[in-house]
C-alpha cells in the first residue's frame, strides 16, 4: 500500500494535468458506449408493454400476414377450452394538434367482464378510451368530444375512460367502431388468447393450432418484440461498434500513459527490485495504476453517458421509426447492470492496454536504471520488426475480411478492422522515421521545426502510440465519411432510377416503417381519370413475418412498372422477362437485402403465409433497393388480391402522359382528393425527403466520431505534455541559447503539427482500407446493401484539415507550459 502511494499515487498527483487528461479520455470512451446502449434501449423500447398491462395478461397471440378473418373468433370460441379469445385491430389516427396516435380496436364490451378498461357509451357518439398522458397533453377529459382522422375521414368520438399507462399515448376504440372507421369490416390484426385458470396451456395451444389455417402464426407474446430486437440487431451492433472506437482510441492513451510512467520510473523500479520487490509486485503496481485510471474514468464515463444518452435517444428513435418499426422512446434508465458493465468495460480496457508496458516494468533488472534515451533507442532499432508485424496484420486483415457472416454478424469484418488498426499502429514507427527523413532538408531550416522533428523521432515509442491513436480516430472519421458519402451517392443514383413516376400519393397520416395505412377507397380509380394521367400504379403493402424476421410483402401493377418504371435487377437478369412473368402467377421479385438476409437466389421457392393461405412463390428476380434493410417481396397485384381479396391500396404512383401539364394535373388531383386525408408529393419532393431521412439516419455517426476525435485530441495534448515535462532541461537550455518564449511555444506547436501530419497520412490510408471493409463487408453482411465506392475528396480533405488544426490546438496547453518554465531551475536539474 505504501509502495502504491509513493510510486503510483504521488506521481499521478504530481502530474495532475496529465492524469486528468487520461481519465477524461477513458471517461469519454466509456460515456459513448454507455450512451449508445442506454439510448438504444430507450429508443427501441416500445409502448407495447403498457398496452399489455392495460389489456390484461395474454398467453398466446394469433397473427397473420395480411389480416385475420373475424369469423375465426367464433370457431375458437366454440372450442371446448377454458380460454378467452380477444380480437385486436391496430391502426394510426391523426389528431389535430397531437399528430399521429396509435389506435387499438378491442372488444371492449366483451372484455369489460374480464379485465381492461371499461368504456361506457355516452350520448350518441361512439366512445373512445385514451391514456392519461395523451389526455393531459390534449387537456381532455370525459365526456369531451374528440375528432380523429382515420382512413382519410374525420370521425367524432366521446371520451370515456382515461387509463393510466405511464408515458404511453394511444386511443382505444371498440373493435366494431375501429373496423367501421377503417373500412375493415370483418377483419382483425390479431387475436389475443388468455388461458383460463386450471386449463392446460399446451392443450389450448395445440387445439388452437389445429383449428386455424396453417398460414396463421400462433406465438407466445413478445414475438414482435423479439422480431423488433432481431431487426434492430444489425443497426444497434454497428452503432455499438462505432461507440467502441472512442474506447479503442482511449486504450492507446492508457498504453501511452503507463508506458511514460514505466519509462520515467525505471530507476525507481530498479531500486525496488534491488531491495527485494518481486517481479509480480512491480507488475501489479502498474496494473493497479491503469485500473485506477480506468475505474475513475469509467465512473465519470457512466455518469456522462447517462447525460449523453438523453441527448441522442431522439436521434436513434427517429432512425428506428424511419427505417425499421414504429416505436416511441421510453425514458432513459440507468440500471445497475449498465453501471457495472460500463465500469467493467473501462477497467478491462485500461487493464489490457497496460499489460504490455507493465510487463516491461516487470523485466527491469535490479541493477538497471535505464534512461529514457536508451529505451527510445531500443524502439528505434525495433522499427523494422514492427513493420514486419504490420505486414503480417495487414495480411490477417485481408484474410478476415473474406470470412462469411457469423451468426448474422459481420464478425470477420470487425476482426479485419481490428487487424487493420493493429497494422497501422505497427507501421507507425517506420512512417514517423520515413517522414522525418523525407522532410529533413526543409525542417532543418528553422530551429523550431528542426527541434520538433528530432524530438518526435527521438521519443519514437511514445510518438508512435500517439500517432496511432490519432490515426485511428482520423481513419474512423474518414472511413465512415467515405462509407456514408458512397452510400448517399448510391442512394441518390438509385432514387433517380427508381423514382420514375411524376407524383406519389399516400395517406396524409405520417406512417413509420412497417405501417401501411390504407388509401381511401376509389382514390386510384379517381386519379386515373384525371386528364393527363397516363397510368396509376396502386401499391399494396403489408408487413409480413418470414423465418423469424419481418419484411414487406408488396404488390403493384407490374405491367405499369415494366412500361414506365426502371426497376434495376442484379446483373444478368432480364428485367422485361421477369416483370412479364409475374401477373396471375405465384411468382415474386425480392429486394437485394431480403435475398442476402435469407440466402435467396433467383429461381428459389419461398413459402409465405398470406392471409389464410400458405403460398409457394418462385423468385423470378432480385432487384436493387435501398429503402429497407428488412427487404421486400413483391408480387403482382393480381396475385396479392387472389389471396387477400379486398386489400386496400396503401399508396400510388402516377405517371403523366407525354406533354401533360404537371401543374394542371396536380391541381385536378388535389381537387379530387380534397378532404380525403391524402398527400400528393412531386417526384422531387419525395427524392428530397428520402435524402433528408438518409442524412438524419447518419447524424449520430458524426456525433460519435466527434467524440473519438476529441479523445484523440486529449491524447495528443497528454503526450505533448509528457514530452514537454521530460525535456524540461532541453527547453530551458534553448532559452540560454537565445530562444524566445514564442520560439519554445512554436516548437511545441510544430511538434503538434507534425503529429497531426503523421496521423493524417496514416489515418487516411487506414481510413480508405476501413471504408472498403465497411462498404463491402460490414454493410453488405449486416444490411445487404450494395454500395458503390464514391470517396468524397473535398469532404475528406476538409475533415483531415480540421483534425490537423485541432491537433495543433491540442498543443496549446503543453506549449504554454513549455514557454513558462524557469530556464535556470530546469537547467540545474541533473
Amino acid at each position, binding site marked *: 500500500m505504501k509502495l502504491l502511494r509513493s510510486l503510483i499515487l504521488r506521481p499521478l498527483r504530481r502530474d495532475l494535468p496529465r492524469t486528468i487528461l487520461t481519465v477524461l479520455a477513458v471517461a469519454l470512451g466509456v460515456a459513448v458506449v454507455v450512451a449508445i446502449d442506454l439510448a438504444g434501449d430507450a429508443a427501441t423500447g416500445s409502448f407495447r408493454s403498457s398496452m399489455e398491462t392495460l389489456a390484461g395478461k395474454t398467453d398466446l397471440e394469433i397473427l397473420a400476414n395480411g389480416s385475420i378473418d373475424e369469423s375465426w373468433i367464433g370457431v375458437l370460441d366454440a372450442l371446448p377450452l377454458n380460454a378467452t379469445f380477444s380480437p385486436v385491430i391496430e391502426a394510426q389516427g391523426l389528431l389535430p394538434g397531437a399528430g399521429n396516435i396509435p389506435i387499438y380496436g378491442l372488444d371492449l364490451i366483451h372484455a369489460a367482464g374480464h379485465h381492461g378498461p371499461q368504456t361506457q357509451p355516452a350520448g350518441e357518439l361512439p366512445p373512445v378510451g385514451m391514456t392519461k398522458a395523451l389526455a393531459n397533453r390534449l387537456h381532455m377529459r370525459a365526456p369531451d368530444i374528440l375528432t380523429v382522422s382515420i382512413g382519410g375521414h374525420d370521425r367524432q368520438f366521446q371520451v370515456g375512460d382515461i387509463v393510466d399507462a405511464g408515458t404511453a399515448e394511444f386511443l382505444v376504440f371498440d373493435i366494431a367502431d375501429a373496423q367501421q372507421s377503417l373500412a375493415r369490416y370483418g377483419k382483425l390484426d390479431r387475436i389475443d388468447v388468455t388461458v383460463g385458470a386450471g386449463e392446460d396451456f399446451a392443450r389450448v395451444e395445440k387445439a388452437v393450432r389445429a383449428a386455424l389455417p396453417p398460414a396463421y402464426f400462433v406465438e407466445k407474446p413478445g414475438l414482435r418484440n423479439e422480431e423488433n430486437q432481431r431487426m434492430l440487431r444489425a443497426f444497434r451492433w454497428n452503432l455499438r461498434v462505432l461507440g467502441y472506437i472512442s474506447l479503442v482510441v482511449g486504450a492507446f492513451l492508457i498504453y501511452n500513459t503507463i508506458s511514460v510512467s514505466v519509462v520515467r520510473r525505471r530507476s525507481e523500479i530498479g531500486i525496488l527490485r534491488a531491495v527485494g520487490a518481486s517481479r509480480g509486485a512491480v507488475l501489479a503496481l502498474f496494473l493497479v495504476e491503469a485500473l485506477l485510471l480506468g475505474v475513475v474514468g469509467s465512473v465519470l464515463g457512466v455518469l456522462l453517458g447517462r447525460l449523453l444518452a438523453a441527448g441522442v435517444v431522439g436521434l436513434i428513435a427517429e432512425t428506428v421509426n424511419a427505417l425499421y418499426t414504429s416505436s416511441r422512446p421510453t425514458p432513459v434508465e440507468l440500471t445497475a447492470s449498465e453501471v457495472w458493465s460500463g465500469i467493467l468495460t473501462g477497467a478491462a480496457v485500461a487493464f489490457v492496454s497496460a499489460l504490455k508496458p507493465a510487463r516491461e516494468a516487470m523485466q527491469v533488472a535490479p541493477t538497471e536504471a535505464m534512461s529514457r534515451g536508451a529505451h527510445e533507442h531500443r524502439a528505434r532499432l525495433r522499427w523494422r520488426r514492427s513493420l514486419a508485424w504490420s505486414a503480417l496484420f495487414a495480411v490477417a486483415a485481408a484474410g478476415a475480411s473474406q470470412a462469411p457472416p457469423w451468426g448474422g454478424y459481420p464478425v470477420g469484418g470487425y476482426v479485419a478492422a481490428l487487424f487493420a488498426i493493429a497494422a497501422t499502429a505497427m507501421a507507425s514507427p517506420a512512417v514517423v522515421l520515413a517522414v522525418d527523413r523525407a522532410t529533413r532538408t526543409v525542417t*532543418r531550416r528553422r530551429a523550431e521545426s528542426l527541434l520538433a522533428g528530432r524530438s518526435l523521432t527521438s521519443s519514437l515509442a511514445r510518438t508512435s502510440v500517439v500517432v496511432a491513436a490519432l490515426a485511428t480516430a482520423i481513419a474512423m472519421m474518414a472511413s465512415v465519411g467515405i462509407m456514408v458519402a458512397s452510400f448517399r451517392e448510391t442512394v441518390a443514383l438509385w432514387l433517380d432510377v427508381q423514382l420514375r413516376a411524376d407524383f406519389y400519393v399516400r395517406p396524409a397520416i405520417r406512417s413509420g416503417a412497417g405501417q401501411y395505412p390504407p388509401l381511401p377507397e376509389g382514390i386510384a380509380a379517381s386519379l386515373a381519370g384525371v386528364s393527363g394521367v397516363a397510368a396509376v400504379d396502386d401499391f399494396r403493402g403489408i408487413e409480413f413475418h418470414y423465418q423469424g424476421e419481418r419484411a414487406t410483402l408488396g404488390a403493384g401493377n407490374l405491367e405499369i412498372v415494366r412500361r414506365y418504371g426502371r426497376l434495376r435487377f442484379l446483373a444478368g437478369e432480364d428485367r422485361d422477362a421477369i416483370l412479364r412473368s409475374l401477373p396471375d402467377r405465384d411468382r415474386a421479385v425480392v429486394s437485394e437485402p431480403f435475398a442476402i438476409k435469407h440466402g435467396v437466389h433467383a429461381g428459389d421457392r419461398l413459402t409465405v403465409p398470406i392471409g389464410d393461405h400458405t403460398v409457394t412463390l418462385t423468385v423470378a428476380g432480385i432487384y436493387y433497393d435501398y429503402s429497407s434493410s428488412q427487404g421486400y417481396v413483391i408480387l403482382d397485384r393480381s396475385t396479392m388480391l387472389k389471396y387477400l381479396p379486398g386489400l386496400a391500396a396503401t399508396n400510388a404512383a402516377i405517371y403523366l402522359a407525354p406533354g401533360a401539364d404537371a401543374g394542371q394535373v396536380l391541381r385536378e388531383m388535389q381537387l379530387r382528393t380534397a378532404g380525403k386525408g391524402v398527400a400528393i408529393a412531386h417526384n422531387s419532393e419525395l427524392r428530397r425527403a428520402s435524402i433528408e431521412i438518409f442524412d438524419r439516419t447518419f447524424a449520430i455517426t458524426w456525433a460519435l466520431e466527434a467524440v473519438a476525435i476529441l479523445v484523440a485530441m486529449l491524447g495528443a495534448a497528454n503526450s505533448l505534455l509528457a514530452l514537454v515535462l521530460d525535456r524540461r532541461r532541453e527547453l530551458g537550455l534553448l532559452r540560454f541559447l537565445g530562444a524566445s518564449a514564442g520560439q519554445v511555444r512554436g516548437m511545441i506547436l510544430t511538434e503538434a503539427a507534425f503529429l497531426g501530419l503523421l496521423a493524417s497520412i496514416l489515418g487516411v490510408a487506414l481510413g480508405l482500407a476501413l471504408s472498403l471493409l465497411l462498404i463491402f463487408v460490414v454493410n453488405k453482411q449486416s444490411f445487404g446493401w450494395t454500395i458503390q465506392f464514391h470517396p468524397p475528396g473535398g469532404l475528406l480533405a476538409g475533415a483531415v484539415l480540421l483534425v490537423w488544426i485541432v491537433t495543433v490546438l491540442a498543443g496549446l496547453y503543453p506549449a504554454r507550459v513549455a514557454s513558462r518554465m524557469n530556464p535556470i531551475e530546469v537547467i540545474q536539474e541533473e
Partner: protein
Amino acid sequence: MPVRLELRGVSKTYRNGGQPTEVLHDISLSAVPGTVTALLGRSGCGKTTLLHLAGAMDFPTAGDVLIDGRVTSTLSDAELTTLRRTRVGFVFQFFQLLPTLTALENVELPLLLARAPNTTGKARDRLRWVGLEEKAASLPYQLSGGQMQRVAIARALVHSPDILIADEPTGNLDTASGDQVLALLREAATRFGATVLLATHSAEAAAIAGVRVSLRDGRVQSIEAS
C-alpha cells in the same frame, strides 16, 4: 578600454519556503573586452548565481547588472532575447548538448534561433576552430567528454558574442581535455575579444584568468589581477 560588463552592489536573495536566503551580497565588479575573469570559491558560494545575473538570465534583488552601460533588469523580454542571441554565450559544466542533434546542428542552433543567414557555414567554421570538423555529423553520445565541451564552446561562440559565460567548463573533464578547453576559452578572449567570465574550482582554470575574484558565502573576498 570601456567596461563591458559591470555589477554594482549586486545582491540576490531567494525565498525558500518563505525563508529568505541571501546567495549574493553587495557584489561589485567589472570586466573589459578581451579579458578572462575567474570566479573562485567553494560549491554553494554563489558563483553560478552570479553567472546567471551576468548573462541576464536572472536579475538581482538589489543593485544593478550593466551590459555596455544598460541595466539588464530594465530590458524587455524581447530585448533580453536579442541580448542573449547577439551578445552572450554560455558554456556549462555538463555540456548541455541536445542529444538528438549532431555536433554541427548543436553549434548551428543559436544561429537558427536568431534567424541568422548562412548558419551552416558559420557553424562549420566554429567547429573547425575547436578542431572537430570531422565530427560534424556525430551525435553527442558518439563524442568524448572533452569533445562535447569543445562543441559546446563552438556553440557558445558561433554568434561571436561579446560576453562568454562558462560555468565549471572543465569540472567534468580529464586534465588533457580540460587544458584544451581552457586554451579555447583564452583564445576566445584574445582572438575574438570576448569578455570571458569563468566560474571554477580548478587552479589550472584560474591560471588563464587575468582577474581572479574569490567568493565566500556570497561575498567578494578578494579580487586579484595578474
